[in-house]
């Protein structure tokens, strides 16, 4: 099983929303339009939904 790690840099985000279009289960936008991750990194370094969302 391959592992994927996702990081979002909100300082360079321009809020185009491309990520939400491409992968709505992984990305969202906050009220300012900047990227939000719907997945968090767990202790083994792989990304999973935040506990509340599982």
């Amino acid at each position: 099983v391959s592992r994927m790690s996702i990081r979002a840099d909100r300082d360079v985000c321009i809020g185009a929303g491309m990520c939400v279009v491409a992968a709505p289960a992984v990305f969202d936008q906050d009220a300012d339009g900047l990227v939000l991750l719907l997945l968090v990194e767990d202790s083994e370094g792989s990304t999973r939904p935040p506990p509340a969302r599982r």
Partner: protein
Amino acid sequence: MTQAPAVPLHMRRDGFDPVEEMTRIRRDEGVSPVETGFGARAHLVTRYADVREVLGDATRFSNAGAFRPPEDDRSDEQRERDRAGMLLAFDPPEHTRLRRMLTPEFTVRRMRTLEPRIAEIVADHLDALERAGRPANLVAQFALPIPSLVICELLGVPYADRAEFQARSGRLLDLSISMDERRELARENQAYMDSLVAGALADPGEDMLGMLVREHGAELTAAELSGIGSLLLIAGHETTSNMLGLGTLALLRHPDQLAAVRDDPAAVGPAVEELLRWVSIVHTGVLRTTTTEVEIAGRRIGPGELVLCALPTANRDPALIADSERLDVRRGAPGHPAFGHGVHHCLGAPLARMEMRIAFPALLRRFPDLALAVPAEDVAFRAYHFVYGVHALPVTW
């Protein structure tokens, strides 16, 4: 009668396709010197990977444009006034400052709240088409008025003024007009938007101009508000309207794909992405100025030179997608550069997507037998226009 100027190489199309010479440049050298059409030479970038690299690097490839056409005799003060609020004329951090004020208005979620109203606008225009009867001109009766009304309501521009500003922006984007006419039209456009901004400053409404005044009034000058308004008004209706017109024409020429968009709701999203890629309405070339020596496709380009990114060839690059010349709406996916790339990626992309996802299937379901009312070869493409499209689209059903 004055002779129309030659269409610059990078804007030449063979119907929907880039001309053979453009495809050859992409295959062979990748980058080629070209006349821009406004009295300057540029390096034309034709490949998907190179276009992404240029547009993705605002540090080495600047929008702030040191370039100035020889016939541009405006004072420095006037030039600053004219570019105020024009996001495409700035680099970070100035660009970031303006863009961050607008981003909340164009989130994917925000667009979903507009969906019912857009669906209503589309249905109203389909009703009117049905009442007026066949044949119809789909550009004048559907493709242009829908995005125009949507952006007017969103921005806070009186739709009653549409005849005036549609004519102006249509002319402004025509490459073949004289510099004098362009300047006069730009002046009229600026005066019109200035008057709307003055109204919004006095009494800010619930629309986007009103929001900008209420939330950012202290940070924005009236000239910036006017520039933002002008840019969004032009960008909001010229682009989506030509995608609706050309997209419908493309589907009419591919009846099995038209049937998929009409009959299968799941086919609509991918179809919109594939039409954006295959049609490439922004065919003027996206201009940047190098800030340092760069290398593109093995060619060294010095600082202060113009680089012109060709979206039609990038969108048809086999490196982007296999069998790239073929339209196949079933395989459509985001990732194409039709909306650009990098910090200037189309602000209104979520709105444009929403409008197309509603309008295409609604049109095809209302008129399941939609067909061209003239022979296909009689549909004239707008060769001289900054945004590719058709002058008229006569249809019947």
